[in-house]
Structures are given as C-alpha cells and as structure tokens.
C-alpha cells in the first residue's frame, strides 16, 4: 500500500474552472510538500506545509494541511493552461532528506 494516496489520478478541466486535488494518509507527518512536474522535466517544489490546519496561498493555488497532519489538499482557482502538469505530494521521512512521493495527479487544463 502507498504511504500517500493521491486523488484523483487524472483531472481534465476547461480554462477558468476550479479544481481540487487531494493527498491522504493514515500516518501523521511533521510536514508535507507539494511539487509540480511539467512533461520532460524534473519536479519543482511549490510549497511546504508544517502546521496542522495551515493554509498557504501561492497566487491562484491554495494549499491546506489537515488538522491532524495526515492529509493535504491543493485547490486551483480559475485554472489556466499553464497549470497543466503532474502534481505530487511528498513527505520527508528522515532528516537527511529521504522523500516519499505519492503517485501524483495529472492535471490537464484546456483553453
């Protein structure tokens, strides 16, 4: 079983619509990260959330860490084609930098 379950696996929406993707686990984490990966490139860190209930905003992206620090969500408002990509959540398992990634949500935003 996956430590991090991401849903949905795939999401296709029209430009201007809103979307939410989820990252869930039965384990408690001290922090959780979201990465975005564009085709043919490496993932790029978007945000790190560390406090239960924390909400962080990055332009049209809103990230929330669950109160119990077991889950997280990413909400995109008024999606644009540039938001297309694979969204990955990850948790730091050891202090030296071992990350465990979820399987990702593939988001496609069409004009």
């Amino acid at each position: 079983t996956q430590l991090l379950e991401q849903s949905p696996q795939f999401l296709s929406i029209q430009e201007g619509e809103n979307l939410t993707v989820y990252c869930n686990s039965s384990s408690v984490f001290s922090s959780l990260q979201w990465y975005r990966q564009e085709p043919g490139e490496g993932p790029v860190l978007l945000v790190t959330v560390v406090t239960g209930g924390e909400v962080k905003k990055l332009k049209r992206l809103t990230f929330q860490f669950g109160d119990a620090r077991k889950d997280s969500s990413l909400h995109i408002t008024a999606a644009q084609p540039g938001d297309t990509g694979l969204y990955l959540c990850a948790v730091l398992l050891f202090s030296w930098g071992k990350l465990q990634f979820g399987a990702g949500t593939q988001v496609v935003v069409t004009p």
Partner: protein
Amino acid sequence: SQTIHQWPATLVQPVGSPLSLECTVEGTSNPNLYWYRQAAGRGLQLLFYSVGIGQISSEVPQNLSASRPQDRQFILSSKKLLLSDSGFYLCAWNTAYEQYFGPGTRLTVT
C-alpha cells in the same frame, strides 16, 4: 547558485546492453544525492541515495547500481539492461527540507 546537470537527455538502448547515466551538481559541496525512476505520468521511486563519496545506499533490489566517484558526481549504471528498466531517471540533491531535481534522462530499452 546551485545547478544540477544530467546527461544524456534521451537514450535508446537494446536489451542486454550496458548503461551509464551521469549527474553532476554545481554550486554546493558535499550534497546528499539521489537517483529516482519515474514511470509515465506517475510518482517517483527512489533507487539510490548517497551522503558522501563512495557511500551508496540502495532502496530496492534491481538491475541497477550507483557510484559516487567525486563529491558532486553521481553515476547510475547497469551491466545488462532489461525492458523493465525503461523510464524517466531523475537525479536530485537536497537542502535541509527541499529537493532540487535535474532535467532527467528518458531511457527506452528496446
């Protein structure tokens, strides 16, 4: 600023042939280095990590090996490729809490 390089960018190799992928990091010293493999459109699987020269830890048993001959150089190798070795290979290094990824190598084993 730190930069991470990987080459080649793409590679097509026949089954049974050897493999060598190289990763180098600039702008930092004694980084932790990582090799990941990614299936199409899916998450990342950690293959190897290294905390220093000559120190390699393997995460999963497989047909691959890794070496770190220099502080900022990380090499992924195989003596004989399998079809299942196809994928997108990513090298990464990290600060305390963030990983930075290279541009990746797309490997197709035919």
